[in-house]
């Protein structure tokens, strides 16, 4: 594969993209002619599953792949940059592996995008007309940027070995790739932002200011949220790729490399996910400031139970991560010294998880409802935001401690103040835990606006301060530390790799569900308050139905991913670019 010259690669990319776009437009033209005219209020119906489910699945799949191809380059380039500064061959290899992944994923992304491009105008002609009228120019800009992005991406990939001696320039190309990616993200976010929190149009949907239609309430927060989530997601997929390769690999050398790759990717993923609550908070604030009603509907109305689902999922993700880190202690020489702490971390984790998934109002049987009313007198208290925020901060803290323990498990500090340092660490951990708990208890006593606007940010602030303090402390304390033994990469039981896969699957599912909620928050509107959805699908389905669709599309996504992984392995074998070479 890498033998292909840069020029050939670029031409191939150009042709692929043009052919796909061409197919898209031809289909649009032909289908527009062949199909019966849309119904009076502007809809065509997709056979069997209905237009909504079809577009739902295709759009979410496209979004998943897009998230992947936009998210992975960010840390692929960061890795390459690091490898260039430190001349570390292993980092270069991992960066190249990432690049291979997303370059190949482009084709699938574009293909699904083409299906979406055909589906939307055919099934929802009136709505798309409106979108084109309001945001049309951004669409043409989008195509231009897409071409540039694909060209840069292919160039970046195919020139990897050619530009070995010119790493600086190559990293710069990677930077350009990411800038293009961010622009694409901004454009697509503006579309979704307009649909959910429209602006710049009159009440009847006439364009007043195109810039205001782009720069809606949701635009920037949504873009940031997606950007961060893309990195988390991309790294998660990379981790599951590593897990897959780990499980199917036949040599110890391969296993060692993929173990390390899985670990690195998973840690990038979890590290970035720490920012997500904060970014999500910003997004929530913007939705509230656009329309209080929509905000409350999303947070506590029809969707209230999906937040419980979200708690179950995030709790599972954190459990998987901690599990992975705890198992990893097995491969660290000296790691066995720390197993005794795992017990306590586990108990805290369990309690935090329990609090987090306690629902506020509970679906009761009649008998139960007779005895207590809708809210359980004790559990009801655990179901509110004050308790949940506290629980999530504590579980995050535990996760960080698991990570810290893993990092230091094969080291012995040599600095003279090691004892003091340990005492300091205990003080920081205990202090921040007490502070977080105290704030949590206090937030029961204040009004909701104080809780949301003042106390929650403080809680997260305390958490971030303490992990930064711990980070610095550990860095100083374990400087030049005595190393008991190098980590035995590859000496991992297989089940740890399933935990990695579990993280990614759960995260993908979560992404699908949150996407549904964001989209469902519009209720029976295509463009909230501007264009009403009058199709037969205007209702919100049951949570069960939504969960089934999300599961189906997640499985489809992973099947496609599996094909991609398989394709990469085939190519490697053919090109003699064996994974074991590094």
């Amino acid at each position, binding site marked *: 594969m890498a033998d292909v010259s840069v020029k050939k690669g670029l031409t191939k990319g150009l042709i692929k993209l043009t052919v796909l776009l061409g197919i898209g437009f031809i289909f649009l033209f032909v289908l527009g002619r062949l199909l019966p005219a849309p119904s009076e209020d502007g809809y065509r119906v997709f056979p069997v599953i209905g237009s909504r489910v079809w577009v739902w699945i295709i759009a979410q799949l496209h979004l998943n792949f897009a998230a992947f191809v936009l998210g992975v380059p960010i840390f692929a380039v960061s890795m390459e940059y690091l490898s260039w500064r430190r001349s570390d061959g292993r980092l270069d290899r991992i960066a190249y592996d990432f690049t291979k992944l997303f370059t190949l994923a482009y084709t699938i992304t574009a293909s699904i995008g083409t299906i979406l491009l055909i589906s939307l105008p055919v099934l929802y002609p009136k709505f798309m007309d409106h979108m084109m009228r309001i945001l049309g120019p951004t669409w043409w800009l989008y195509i231009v940027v897409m071409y540039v992005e694909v060209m840069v991406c292919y160039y970046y990939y195919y020139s990897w070995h050619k530009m070995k001696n010119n790493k600086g320039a190559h990293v710069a190309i990677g930077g350009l790739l990411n800038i293009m990616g961010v622009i694409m993200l901004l454009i697509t976010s503006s579309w979704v932002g307009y649909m959910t929190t429209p602006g710049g149009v009159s009440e009847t949907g006439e364009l007043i200011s195109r810039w205001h239609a782009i720069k809606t309430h949701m635009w920037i927060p949504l873009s940031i949220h997606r950007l961060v989530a893309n990195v988390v997601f991309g790294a998660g997929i990379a981790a599951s790729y590593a897990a897959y390769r780990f499980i199917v690999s036949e040599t110890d050398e391969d296993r060692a490399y993929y173990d390390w790759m899985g670990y690195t990717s998973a840690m990038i993923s979890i590290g970035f996910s720490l920012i997500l609550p904060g970014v999500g908070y910003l997004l929530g604030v913007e939705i509230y400031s656009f329309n209080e009603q929509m905000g409350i509907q999303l947070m506590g109305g029809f969707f209230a139970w999906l937040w419980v689902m979200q708690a179950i999922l995030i709790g599972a993700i954190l459990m998987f991560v901690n599990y992975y880190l*705890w*198992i990893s202690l*097995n491969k660290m020489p000296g790691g066995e010294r720390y197993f005794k702490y795992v017990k306590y971390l586990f108990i805290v984790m369990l309690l935090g998880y329990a609090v987090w998934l306690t629902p506020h109002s509970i679906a*009761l049987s*009649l008998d139960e409802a007779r005895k207590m009313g*809708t809210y*359980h007198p004790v559990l009801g208290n655990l179901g509110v935001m004050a308790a949940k925020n506290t629980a999530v901060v504590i579980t995050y803290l535990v996760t960080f401690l698991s990570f810290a323990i893993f990092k230091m498990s094969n080291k012995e500090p040599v600095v003279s103040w090691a004892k003091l340092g340990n005492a300091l660490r205990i003080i920081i951990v205990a202090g921040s835990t007490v502070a977080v708990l105290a704030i949590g208890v206090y937030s029961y006593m204040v009004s909701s606006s104080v809780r949301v606007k003042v106390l929650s940010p403080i809680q997260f602030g305390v958490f971030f301060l303490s992990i930064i303090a711990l980070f610095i402390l550990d860095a100083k304390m374990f400087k030049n530390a005595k190393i008991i033994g190098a980590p035995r990469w590859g000496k991992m039981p297989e*089940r740890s790799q399933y935990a990695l896969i579990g993280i990614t699957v759960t995260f993908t599912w979560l992404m699908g569900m949150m996407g549904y909620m964001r989209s469902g928050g519009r209720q029976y509107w295509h463009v909230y308050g501007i264009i009403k959805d009058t199709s037969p699908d205007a209702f919100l389905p049951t949570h069960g139905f939504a969960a089934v669709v999300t599961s189906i599309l997640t499985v489809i996504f992973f099947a496609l991913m599996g094909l991609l992984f398989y394709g990469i392995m085939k190519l490697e074998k053919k090109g003699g670019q064996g994974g074991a070479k590094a």
Partner: protein
Amino acid sequence: MLKIYPVIAIIGLVISIGSVIRKSPFFNFTGILVCIYGLLKSAEYVMPALPSQVILMYMAMSFFSFFIYFSIQEETFKAFLEPMRAVFADDNKALLRVLIVFIGLPLFAGYLTYVKVKPTYDPPVSARIVHPEPPSQMDFRGKSVNVLGLENPLRKDAANFAKYVEEGKKIYYQNCFFCHGDDLDGKGHLSQAFNPVPLPFRGTDTIAQLPESFVFWRVSKGWRGLPAGSGPWNSSMPSFEDFLTEEEVWKVIMFIYDSTGNKPRSW
């Protein structure tokens, strides 16, 4: 009544402790889960019982988490799987295997199916608000009364307090006693004829939680005054404005508070 759930919790704990000593993680796991189940269920002795759905959720979470926990270390995990491996691979345990596969599992599946399809006779859920918000205005025999901030006019006349209570007692025994009982505990002669049964005045969760204005409204208007959410059809309280004067209602209210030792809510 035998308290079964704490016993289950203790049994679980014993299994768990015993298996720690015997170094058998699998039974430790089982013991912990049994113990947690027992504890969650015993919560009903100190507070309203936990809803079954929440218990299911907690149990699923515990199962998942503890399974994970016991698979962290290689040796523990091996020991954890040992009993299962023994059952399914040991030649001597063929009988046990047959029992589990051909009798245990089918019975279990049958039980689940039975629970699922067993008909229940619960009436449809309607959460009834027993003490709804009263209107801020009401008519008493055609006279408009502000319920919001309404106070018992007779309480100001502290000198005659005992007299009013005594008169209230008479009214009570002429009108209320048949349902609400001689002891004001809601167990009057006719009480068992009603569903729901008349509320008691003793204890801290009925009139002790209510301001006098509420009681006045409730006594005067009876079932007819209840909003739809409180199911007027589910109350047999008559509208006493048809039988008593305003003053008489206040007197009987003073009597029920005084004789049960409760104080009207004033906040």
